[in-house]
């Protein structure tokens, strides 16, 4: 943030500006969906009566309609947000009817001539009146400087928020400016080191804060809100990443909460620079976890090639709520070095939830389904005979959790080679043991129901 933090319009005391800076205190609350609340507290010297205050150092992505200035001893008359930006061509357009100075440099000698001119029009060319001549600027292609006496009042280098206040008494006032801004966002990134021998998961959480708002925030008290906040007038992305939560928890996490959201406060004030991704650790958790092979199928059909079983890591976040983010799972290789092993999305997850994170597919554990026969029992019911060949090329036995979807009302198992259990109305589940370097065939016949 630039040091000239505030400029009070020309009529007011210029010296008050820098004095105010040092007391500036920033608090930022960042939401998941590209939104942040900025609170800017400072002490301003105000004369009695009306004063226009210009805030040049607010976020470049401010939503000006959300700005509010509060404090005791003054009232807000009006607030404006001006975004007519100063450029050379704008300056010339605003100079129509006014006098400018043109400086010509004679190429041969380098001698300069200075003349006053009045701008008559700026329409795909600048027409000037110089004395009693009418000329077009730079028509001869010679180097011609244009010197303006002043910058038009409404043109600014940056979009500027200005607030006119009416103070009862002259003197220093404590004010708080708050506004919403886009360009700031955060999510969580998790590093999960999975030890499949010990069945433990070492979970580290990082808050990843991204600032593309066009402004830096110096020494700001920073809070992050986890939760889905409704925002109007914006495209609502209703797509949710595939949910890894198997059963939502009922525990209250020990994080502070506001309303229905969790609040994470960074331990110290931080400077969030423009064009920066900042990461701060917020979670260090060891939980029990186990690896599960899963195969899920949604109908009764054959596959020509074996399909690899999914590898999931199942665990519970006993104490801590997990804000939305990406969980990257690492495994140790033979040399003991952690290696990346896959990643999954995590939604906002209450503490005590059961999570199942899919990391990838097992190279050595495959399932090959065959529809042995299907016959019609009645118009809507079919009897399917399925055979699943499960192969395991690992040197240790595994158990594959097989899920067969596709049962309808009244659907039931007629025969089966291993006992099934009903996961829900439409889904059957088998835990199929497969020996080391061996195979198991699961066969069953079901009445699909209607």
């Amino acid at each position, binding site marked *: 943030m630039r040091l000239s933090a505030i400029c009070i319009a020309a009529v007011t005391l210029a010296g008050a500006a820098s004095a105010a800076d040092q007391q500036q205190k920033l608090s930022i609350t960042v939401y998941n969906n590209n939104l942040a609340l900025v609170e800017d507290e400072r002490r301003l010297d105000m004369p009695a009566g009306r004063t226009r205050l210009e805030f040049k150092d607010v976020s470049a992505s401010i939503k000006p309609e959300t700005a509010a200035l509060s404090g005791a001893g003054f009232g807000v008359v009006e607030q404006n947000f001006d975004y007519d930006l100063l450029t050379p061509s704008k300056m010339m357009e605003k100079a129509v009817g006014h006098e400018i100075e043109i400086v010509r440099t004679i190429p041969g000698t380098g001698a300069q001539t200075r003349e006053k001119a009045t701008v008559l029009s700026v329409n*795909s060319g600048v027409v000037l009146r110089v004395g009693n001549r009418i000329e077009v*600027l730079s028509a001869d292609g010679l180097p011609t400087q244009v010197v303006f006496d002043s910058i038009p009042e409404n043109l600014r280098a940056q979009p500027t928020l200005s607030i006119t206040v009416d103070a009862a008494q002259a003197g220093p006032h404590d004010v708080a400016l708050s506004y919403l801004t886009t360009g700031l966002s955060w999510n969580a990134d998790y590093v999960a080191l999975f030890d499949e021998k010990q069945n433990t998961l070492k979970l580290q959480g*990082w808050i990843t804060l991204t600032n593309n708002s066009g402004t830096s925030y110096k020494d700001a008290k920073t809070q992050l809100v986890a939760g889905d906040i409704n925002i109007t007038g914006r495209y609502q992305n209703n797509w949710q990443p595939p949910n890894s939560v198997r059963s939502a928890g009922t525990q209250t996490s020990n994080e502070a909460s506001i309303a229905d959201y969790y609040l994470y406060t960074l331990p110290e004030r931080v400077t969030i620079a423009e064009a920066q991704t900042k*990461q701060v650790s917020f979670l260090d958790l060891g939980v029990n976890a186990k690896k599960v092979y899963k195969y899920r199928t949604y109908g009764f059909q054959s596959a020509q090639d074996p399909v690899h079983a999914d590898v999931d890591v199942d665990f519970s976040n006993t104490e801590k709520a997990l804000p939305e983010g990406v969980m990257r799972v690492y495994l140790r290789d033979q040399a003991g070095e*952690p*290696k990346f092993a896959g990643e999954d999305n995590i939604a906002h997850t209450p503490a005590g939830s059961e999570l199942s994170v899919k990391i990838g597919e097992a*190279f050595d554990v495959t399932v090959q389904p*065959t529809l042995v026969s299907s016959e019609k029992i009645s118009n809507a019911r079919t009897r399917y005979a399925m055979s699943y060949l499960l192969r395991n090329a690992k040197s240790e036995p595994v158990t594959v959790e097989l899920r067969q979807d596709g049962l309808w009302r009244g659907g039931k198992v007629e025969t089966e080679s291993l006992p099934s259990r009903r996961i829900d109305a439409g889904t059957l589940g088998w835990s199929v043991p497969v020996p080391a370097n061996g195979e198991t065939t699961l066969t069953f016949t079901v009445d699909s129901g209607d």
Partner: protein
Amino acid sequence: MRATRLLAVAFFAACASARADVISQRPDSVAITFYHEGAVDTSELLNAGENSSIRNSGLAFITEKRTIDLPAGPAVVKFEGVTSTMVPQTADIQGLPTGALERNFDYDLLSPGSLLAKSIGETVRLVRTDTKSGKRIEETAIIRSGPDGAVFEVNGKFEALHCSALPEKLIFEHIPGGLTDTPTLSVRTTAPEAGRYTVTLSYIATGLDWSADYVAHIEPGSDKLELRGWLTLANFSDTGFDHVPVNAVAGELRTTGADRPLRAQPLVLTTNCWPTKIDWAKYPLPPPAPPPPPGPLEMVVVTAERRAADIQSVPLAVTAYTQQEIKAQALGDYKLYPLPEPVTVAARQTKQIQFVYRPDVTFKRVYRYSVYGSEADPNQKTEVVLRLRNRTEDGLGKPLPAGGVSVFETSDDGTPIFAGQDSIGDMAEDLPIEIKTGGAMDVPVEARVTEYTTTGSGRKDREKMEITVENKKAVPIEFEIRQFAFGSARIDSDAHFESESGFAIWHFHLGPGERETLRYAMRWPA
């Protein structure tokens, strides 16, 4: 550039007197683990432009060992020389004495535009040079507006930059804080005492991919093939790796699409001058937009992309170890292939290393004709299929990562002929493998529906098929007819058939010149 960076560092140091800046310029050693995302297609990589999204694909895990000298107290460690395609939020730093208080990735790039934008309100020197005499006139100016068209103030008057066609430039005293020449990863940490520390920086990067490619050679008349497997490593990032240990991981990892490198866009400087070049011919119809003004500095566009090496010279390096095999290790449920020695993976390079060599793999060549619908498709050709079993008894018995298989057959005069290409999925040990090489010329098939009946409502409920095949080759062949039996279809056949993967399959052994006719019926019960 070097000098600029030093200046910037000096400036940062002056600003942040409380903590020291430590710069780690390069890693002492690097190790890369490549993950398989898709088949490596070097021609596609060659044709992909500088900003093609293909550069965001591929995935690798990079581990760097670095030595840093930390002073006692708080410090900021900046990591230079990281892979340009680093995914910053995946960075992990181990080995700092007290861990990382925070990690930052700064990508506010130093460019003419950002230099100007951050200098608004600052005093700079304006230098104008007379082209004839070479005389320089220097004045003090205050920047009043930024990169959308600069306006500056000299002696209380206002002028525009680069609108007068005079040679003019601005000289800045220093680089505004926070601007960086290249996106930079840094950590804030505190060391209890000064000392030298070895830290491990690991992160995910894109632009690196690998795939397996297999080459099978078949001698005439042989029932064994020679199989070579190649690890094809592709580096389409900007960073080269010299003599580094490399691992390749086989198996399907789940990814979320969140691992994308951050591409910093530099702030572009424009002039936005008033119209200065008058096109009299167009009068009185003014053009809708003012044309850009003349002058060599009318527009400065800076991009962050480093210019790649001449695209023509992208090399395809092949390292052959004729008998070499690489033994897979387990990484969870994936296969990890450690390359036997450090390799150099240059930027924009595809490299191949042999990892499978099996000289005598038993295979069976089968000619196959498939009927998918309820009627024969006249375009359906007889396929040539090579069947293998991934087991030691058959000369194989190795995990085979997914990839393309190219089959070469040696002709009678000894020259290898390319016979076709197929792709296989990840093949664990003991799985059957099928390689389709193409259509057979000398095994003509004639298939027709000889008769069908319908129910009262017009639904086809029975159909008779007749398929005739002739072996016009000089050698005996194994031939298969497959009828896809979808839904509740039933097949009536006097000849013996097997059911597999949803097909009814009839097997034939045909000597040279032999003909065979198969008749069967399909039924669809109500």
